[in-house]
């Protein structure tokens, strides 16, 4: 992060020690067959930065536990926290959340976690995100709108097809550039985003946030580096095999 904090800038704290707490599922929906969205009320909730994540832990009757990290889609001003989880084959936690969890259920939660992959809401930044990697970018978009600083954030979202892009409508309303790799879209031929498409978003950007699968992240890093971005300005969050 560069520059001195401006008076009245956003500082929710939320970067110190965290402890396990519980949260209740208030709404659950499946925006697509492979996606589950949970909105939860968190006991003793700490404030958070856009880009931070939570741990969700499940506990079996024999005290066996399974936990995974999930980015928040919600911003700090939301009275609930929102998760968008991809249901992975054999994903011990994601399958449970998609198939078993119900409104009213209580889960163990811990967060917010992460000081690195977070946006301070005023440094001019670009998000290059793929698939369910859009989730932290959605939190950043919501924070930008809440603080009236939408001009400080640019988003490029990548998915194979429209039905595989979570939050597509919200991204479009924000003015995100959207690239579908397998389907044409409004005159854009199918294919990965190009340096020419990325260039206008990078103009003036001081930080780049990359989130997606390991394969997507490798592609995004190469595109940003070949576009002349300083490696130190790139922050990466990868996921995939950890289910």
């Amino acid at each position, binding site marked *: 992060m560069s520059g001195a904090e401006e008076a009245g800038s956003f500082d929710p704290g939320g970067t110190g020690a*965290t402890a396990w707490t519980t949260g209740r599922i208030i709404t659950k929906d499946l925006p697509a067959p492979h996606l589950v969205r949970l909105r939860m009320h968190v006991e003793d909730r700490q404030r958070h930065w856009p880009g931070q994540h939570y741990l969700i832990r499940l*506990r*079996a009757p024999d005290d066996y536990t399974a936990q995974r990290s999930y980015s928040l889609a919600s911003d700090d001003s939301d009275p609930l926290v929102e998760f968008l989880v991809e249901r992975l084959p054999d994903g011990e936690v994601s399958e449970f959340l998609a198939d078993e969890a119900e409104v009213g*259920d209580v889960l163990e939660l811990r967060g917010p976690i992460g000081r690195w992959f977070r946006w301070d809401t005023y440094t001019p930044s670009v998000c290059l995100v793929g698939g369910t990697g859009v989730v932290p970018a959605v939190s950043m978009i919501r924070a930008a709108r809440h603080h009236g600083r939408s001009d400080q954030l640019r988003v490029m979202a990548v998915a194979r097809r429209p039905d595989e892009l979570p939050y597509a409508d919200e991204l479009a309303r924000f003015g995100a550039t959207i690239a579908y790799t397998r389907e044409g879209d409004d005159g854009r031929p199918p294919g990965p985003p190009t340096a020419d498409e990325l260039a206008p978003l990078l103009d003036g950007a001081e930080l780049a946030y990359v989130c997606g699968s*390991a394969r997507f992240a490798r592609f995004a890093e190469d595109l940003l580096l070949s576009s002349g971005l300083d490696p130190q300005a790139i922050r*990466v969050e990868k996921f995939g*095999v950890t289910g």
Partner: protein
Amino acid sequence: MPVTRGFRRRRPDGPEGRLPPGQYDVGSGWPVLTAEATPRIERESWSIEVDGLVDRPTTWTWDDVQQLPRSSYSGDIHCVTTWSKFDVVFTGVSVDSLLDVAGPQPEAAYVMAHSSTGYTTNLALADLTGGKAWVVWEFDGRPLTAEHGGPVRLLVPHLYFWKSAKWISRLELMAADRPGFWEVNGYHDRGDPWLEQRYQGDP
């Protein structure tokens, strides 16, 4: 904490006594987790320096480390994101071999491991000595790939894997502890998987 309604154990426990609390066996996979862009470093341009509170600050090139006695680790690794991987084999040199040359001074008690990307992680010197830590360039008999920290990474398998800094370039010996990259960013200063020292606030 309450039992989660409807949740049952589906995975076996893994080999007796080898899975730390909260971890699962990832099997043959090896997830990649990094915070920064993956650097492409040639073996010929790589080097490692041991400096700070040592009698003889020393830099080894790729050719230099090949002259040191080779040492391998065969065993398990544990990532803070909850996967564990059993029976991996890494080969390189023991950190003891580097420290024997550099000569730690009596007041040296901590080490900052630096990567060429600027990544850092802090360790107690005692966690790097006595055959517990390596500087490695082979995984299962093959050159370590860039995404897994190649050409050369640190290996401290008794701690969570973020302590095993990828693209290792420097070991800086210090008198006092100082948090590294993830440690500043909310992770635990020591990171013992058997004590579940994952984040700031854990025991």
